[in-house]
């Protein structure tokens, strides 16, 4: 092969490469070359790596493949396919915390088939250019003499550099959502722990931590009651409910109150307001053997204002019930969520126990019969 043929082949190869570089992002072309800029695909791709890609019509792509997608000739992105959603494709940079917004399938142009590390292609290029310059020194000098103009040489050099960079370096799409994970926190549950002195608030924090509780208030109607709270674990807070909370709610007869918590987070703060429901119920009264068991389901103490035990016997001959004795008991208080057992002496055959208390301003009377036999 003569020198002329070699030059012709070299020229054709160089022109072909330039065509690849220049045209692939602008028009349909089977092969594309592009340079990686940025660290979104690190460590798979590093800045400066040269990518050889085939058009999607030639090389079909699937999940896990690295593709080049462009929304405009200047704006292209090289990321990995992570999901297909109908006619949309979801890509993600390996080093990015989040996925890119879904893109229409038509945006995807090339599948990356070969990654040439920057050190490799730069070394090869430098060696080739160096060898070429040394070998063709005379011709190049003659050519420069022919040109005669420094203007043309400088201008051409800058044009080539500019065009090559514009063609090789795509401008990546940028949205903060793909590179920044926004911290957030959501509420998992709020519950009053028995006997009502504690409220457990559980959160689902994402990329943030609860540092401390900087403020705690309980709001009953329009009254604010100060409370104490502390961080129980990385995702939960315990509020110590002052007893007057329920007393106040009971007094005004409301069935809910609000807990206002101000949390200091490592990345900011949270003002939470959690309404809690409370129900006021009558005492649960049951007979257990010769005892009367009184359970207070409420978060306030219930004052038994009046208690009376009527001991009874049954005269079988006369077929009548007789009152043996009536015993009035001292008033007593059943604590919140507490149980009180009233022991009744076995006098006679049975007894009636009557209690009276006031619930939400209304007097409640309960009576039970206890059989001794």
């Amino acid at each position, binding site marked *: 092969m003569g020198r002329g043929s070699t030059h012709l082949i070299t020229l054709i190869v160089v022109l072909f490469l330039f065509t690849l570089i220049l045209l692939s992002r602008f028009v349909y072309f089977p092969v594309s070359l592009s340079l990686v800029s940025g660290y979104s695909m690190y460590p798979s791709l590093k800045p400066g790596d040269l990518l050889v890609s085939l058009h999607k019509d030639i090389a079909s792509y699937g999940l896990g493949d690295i593709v080049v997608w462009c929304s405009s000739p200047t704006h292209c992105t090289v990321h990995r396919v992570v999901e297909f959603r109908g006619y949309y494709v979801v890509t993600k940079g390996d080093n990015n915390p989040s996925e890119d917004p879904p893109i229409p399938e038509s945006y995807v142009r090339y599948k990356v088939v070969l990654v040439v590390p920057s050190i490799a292609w730069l070394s090869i290029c430098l060696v080739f250019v160096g060898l070429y310059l040394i070998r063709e020194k005379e011709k190049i000098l003659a050519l420069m003499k022919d040109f005669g103009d420094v203007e043309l040489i400088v201008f051409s050099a800058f*044009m080539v550099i500019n065009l090559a960079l514009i063609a090789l370096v795509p401008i*990546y799409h940028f949205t903060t959502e793909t590179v920044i994970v926004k911290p957030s926190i959501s509420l998992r549950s709020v519950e009053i722990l028995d006997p009502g002195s504690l409220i457990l608030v559980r959160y689902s924090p994402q990329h943030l931590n609860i540092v401390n509780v900087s403020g705690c208030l309980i709001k009953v109607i329009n009254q604010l009651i100060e409370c104490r709270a502390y961080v129980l674990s990385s995702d939960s807070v315990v509020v110590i409910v002052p007893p007057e909370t329920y007393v106040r709610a009971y007094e005004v007869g409301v069935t809910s109150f609000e807990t206002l918590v101000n949390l200091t987070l490592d990345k*900011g703060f949270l003002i939470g307001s959690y309404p809690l429901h409370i129900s006021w119920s009558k005492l649960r009264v049951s007979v257990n053997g010769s005892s009367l068991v009184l359970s207070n389901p409420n978060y306030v103490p219930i004052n038994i204002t009046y208690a009376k035990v009527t001991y009874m016997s049954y005269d079988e001959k006369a077929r009548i019930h007789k009152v043996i004795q009536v015993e009035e008991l001292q008033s007593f208080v059943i604590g919140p969520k507490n149980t009180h057992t009233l022991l009744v002496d076995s006098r006679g055959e049975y007894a009636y126990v009557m209690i009276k208390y006031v619930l939400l301003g209304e007097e409640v009377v309960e009576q039970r019969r206890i059989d001794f036999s």
Partner: protein
Amino acid sequence: MSREELILVKRLRKLVVLASAYSVFLGLFTIYLAITPVYVVEGVIEGYVALTHHELMFYGTPVRCDSLFSVSFLSLPVLMLSTYLIFAGALTLYLFFSGRNFNVGVRWLFSGALSILAFSGLFLALIIKVLSAVVTQLSINLNQVTSAGVLYLGASKVSAVYPAGYLLSPLTVLVMTQTYVILAVATYIHMIVVDENKLARSSFYREIKYRVVGS
């Protein structure tokens, strides 16, 4: 030398100094604008963005912004051309003040003007456009209302930094580069005219000498 020629030479000398000095200034100034922060981001995202580099942190974690890396890559020719302008200007000034023939320097200046005219002004404008488009995305607000309550995480604010943030606009770039182009082209034209006059004069004298000797 005729009076017109003398004026032309004087004007050329002035233009050479002006164009060279401006070339050095434009090169230095462009490099300065390229390496100094154009935008400063404050708040949840903190850092700065310059044409050639950037440093952005989000709660202590670096923000990887590939678009800004692209801008850095694309700024490379701008830096190269700026360096070229500095050298071309400095060389011309050296040739001028050392009393040597400064024609080569003027041609170098003209080459820079051609490159700027053809590409770099537009190129720089593109970079600035991309940069400002990216930077607007850095202005975020993380405050939100969730089921847990009102979450105050703050926001980030992007502000242009003096001088780069204010001077690095397409209009400023266009004005500055076009000024250079006008100066360099004017110098080049003057140089050619002066050279042609010299050539014409020398050939005229040669012709006279030939005729005198010949007769």
